[in-house]
């Protein structure tokens, strides 16, 4: 069973190689079969691994020694345990659905680009699998970088548009900033413990001083900030909408952004032992959740709204990690993967039908034309808003309850964010699917339901979004019903032991759930009522609305504070230091050699007489040097 784990990343890698190398010769259908088949095979093996882990527990498989220097060893090893197998299922399962969806969505591309697209997708999944399966931080870092690379490639997939390239670069640079933190943390661990393997690190964590742990965890968290788009490194994620919509779904649901969550959940022992970092994580997560939610309220691009909602939901996950609800965070990753993939794929379906129109103000009334998309999208909105019994309710509730036990203030802010989530999601829903159609006649004429490759994933994901929450039923409803918690028990056992947990009274928990749900329902009704018969107002937004519409001017702030000074500095170096300084030096060296050789060449005149003259003079000089004697000098001075 151990060796089976190797196949999981192997299939996407093979798919990547075949599609990448054969993109010019393979037909589109062959490419999509290979691309989807590779992920499906991985998924099948992941399911087998899941049942294996469920009965036998986790295992570590070493392939070969990756770095071997004296006593310092980094094996290339895979760790299959409860945590990684959950992520494997999410990545390969959702990944497969997205691949299937892509085969229809991207069908208008040329075969060559179609192959490139699937090659990138497979590589993306491969990197993410490597990240999740690695048994030490070094392997995780390989996957971590691979994911960053693939996101760059996919965001800039339509590389003929310069804005998209800019967005891709932005994502890459933002990720690099985070990666540096991650890398430093790994170095620190290696320096202190001499090993980066999870088992070694977690076993020897008590040997680290509290200062070390705090520093390492903060640096790791910086890495997570970049990958999982937290304040202050979140701005790349909304811009990442430049890529094709299924890519957004892949980035937001199955891969990439969940890497940060996975990494912190994996390092839960370190974080539990660093309360200061935990507080930081919770505060940053909460701030991101509320901040992104406010921005999402006023966005008009269907994908931008979803992007900010992802940032916001990721904030909730970090809040969960920060308050020690690791299971809750993983649970939310899972449910979020379901409904966010569904939302993006639904949005993709809408965009596909609207011929790449993304502005929700020009949509409306689509429920008549696209019934499957409409129903599934509605289910996803209900799930993300947190209406019981949809999946989002359970996971978000678990996080918020845990936050309440830590600090009631977290809870109230979190609930405010959840209300905003409900509002902007149903604003989006109402603008898109309710009311009358606001687009052009031509667009209306072409409206159609998407093909089965696109609707099938929507249906599957809708079922998962609806029922996925029952994996983690709170204690309040039924004792011992939280199966995910039981499954993940071995991973978080140590943290659970270290952190004291207080439980809320049953009645209080009921009260909180009831109150929140009621508030959310009211907000949803408000949103639907307000935007159902939306007419495009020509008046420009003012005050807070304008601030929100422009995303709090964060991009402009970054431009002014970081980008522009750096550009100015780069310009200075380019125009002054390089042109006159370095170029002058380099060209000067070249010119000097050229000049010297031109002068030296004149010595080679071919005139035999000159050669002999020089030869005689050289003889004189050599004799003088060889018999460097006072007598010669005395004699010479006597002559003259």
């Amino acid at each position, binding site marked *: 069973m151990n060796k089976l784990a190797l196949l999981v990343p192997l299939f996407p890698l093979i798919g990547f190689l075949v599609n990448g190398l054969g993109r010019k010769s393979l037909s589109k259908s062959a490419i999509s079969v290979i691309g989807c088949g590779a992920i499906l095979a991985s998924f099948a093996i992941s399911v087998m691994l899941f049942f294996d882990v469920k009965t036998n527990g986790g295992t570590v498989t070493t392939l070969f020694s990756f770095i071997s220097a004296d006593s310092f060893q980094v094996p290339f090893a895979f760790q299959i345990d409860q945590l990684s197998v959950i992520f494997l299922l999410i990545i390969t399962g959702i990944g497969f659905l997205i691949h299937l969806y892509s085969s229809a969505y991207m069908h208008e591309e040329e075969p060559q680009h179609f192959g490139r697209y699937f090659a990138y997708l497979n590589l993306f999944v491969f990197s993410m699998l490597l990240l999740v399966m690695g048994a030490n931080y070094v392997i995780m870092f390989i996957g971590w970088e691979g994911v960053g690379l693939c996101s760059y490639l996919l965001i800039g997939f339509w590389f003929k548009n310069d804005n998209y390239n800019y967005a891709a670069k932005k994502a890459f640079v933002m990720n690099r900033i985070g990666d540096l933190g991650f890398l430093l943390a790994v170095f620190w661990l290696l320096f202190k413990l001499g090993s980066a393997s999870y088992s070694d690190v977690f076993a020897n964590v008590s040997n680290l001083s509290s200062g070390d742990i705090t520093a390492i965890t903060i640096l790791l968290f910086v890495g997570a900030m970049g990958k999982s788009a937290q304040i202050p490194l979140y701005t790349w994620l909304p811009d990442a909408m430049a890529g094709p919509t299924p890519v957004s779904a892949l980035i937001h649901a199955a891969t990439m952004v969940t890497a940060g969550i996975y990494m912190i959940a994996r390092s839960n022992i370190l974080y539990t032992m660093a309360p200061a970092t935990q507080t930081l994580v919770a505060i940053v997560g909460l701030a991101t959740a509320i901040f992104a939610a406010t921005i999402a309220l006023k966005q008009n691009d269907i994908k931008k709204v979803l992007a900010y909602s992802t940032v916001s939901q990721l904030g909730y996950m970090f809040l969960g990690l920060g308050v020690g609800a690791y299971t809750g965070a993983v649970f939310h990753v899972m449910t979020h993967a379901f409904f966010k993939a569904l939302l993006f794929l639904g949005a993709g379906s809408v965009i596909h039908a609207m011929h790449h129109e993304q502005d929700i103000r020009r949509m409306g009334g689509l429920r008549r034309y696209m019934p499957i998309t409409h129903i599934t999208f509605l289910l996803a909105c209900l799930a993300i808003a947190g209406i019981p019994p949809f999946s989002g309710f359970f996971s978000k509730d678990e996080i918020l309850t845990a936050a309440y036990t830590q600090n009631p203030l977290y809870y109230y802010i979190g609930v405010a964010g959840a209300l905003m989530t409900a509002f902007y999601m149903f604003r989006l829903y109402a603008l898109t699917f309710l009311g009358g159609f606001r687009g052009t006649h031509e667009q209306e004429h072409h409206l159609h339901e998407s093909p089965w490759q696109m609707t099938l994933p929507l249906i599957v994901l809708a079922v998962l979004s609806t029922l996925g929450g029952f994996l983690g039923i709170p204690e309040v409803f039924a004792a011992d019903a939280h199966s995910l918690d039981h499954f993940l028990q071995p991973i978080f056992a140590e943290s659970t032991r270290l952190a004291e947990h207080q439980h809320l009274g049953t009645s209080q928990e009921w009260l909180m759930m009831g109150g929140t749900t009621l508030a959310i329902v009211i907000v949803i009704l408000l949103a639907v009522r307000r935007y159902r018969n939306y007419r495009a107002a020509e008046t420009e937004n003012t005050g807070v609305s304008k601030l929100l519409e422009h995303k709090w001017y964060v991009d402009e702030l970054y431009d002014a504070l970081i980008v522009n000074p750096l550009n100015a500095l780069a310009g200075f170096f380019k125009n002054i230091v390089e042109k006159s300084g370095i170029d002058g030096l380099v060209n000067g060296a070249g010119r000097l050699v050229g000049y010297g050789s031109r002068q030296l060449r004149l010595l080679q005149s071919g005139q035999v*007489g000159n050669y002999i*003259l020089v030869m*005689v*003079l050289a*003889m*004189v000089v050599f*004799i*003088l040097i060889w*018999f460097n*004697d006072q*007598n*010669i000098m005395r*004699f*010479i001075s006597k*002559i003259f």
Partner: protein
Amino acid sequence: MSVTEILFFFLSALAVFSAVMVLVSKSPVHSVLWLIAVFFAISGHYVLLNAQFLAIVNLIVYAGAIMVLFLFVIMLMNLNAETEPQKHMWMKLAGVISGGCLLIILVSMVRQAVDLPGKTALMKEGNIGLIGNLGKALFSDYVVPFEITSVLFLSAMVGAVVIGKKE
């Protein structure tokens, strides 16, 4: 001052004067004639040193054969003072100065040599320069090099023919 010394200085002066005249003569034919004078002076030195065989060989080979060859070539090419190519004045000066420097350096080296004073070259006496003794040495100890010189001559002859022949 003995007759030997007088002869030595006379021959030395003649050699140096003739050598200088080789250089300064405008006409190549004159140069050749002056060079023959130098060879005669040197042969005189050989006689003084009682190296009679070499004195005769020098006259026959150098002054006779080689210089006649030179003269023949010059006459063949019809070279005379008018067609004589002249070097630039500065080049001549540089050549003289560097040659003078070399002379000064070499002379100063000889002057400071510690084991030369008191050594003399045997004049008039000693019979190693006689043809009989040289012939014995040449055909006993040095017979192999002597035979090999014939190969050298053969190759020189072939070379001269190959180079000189018309294409």
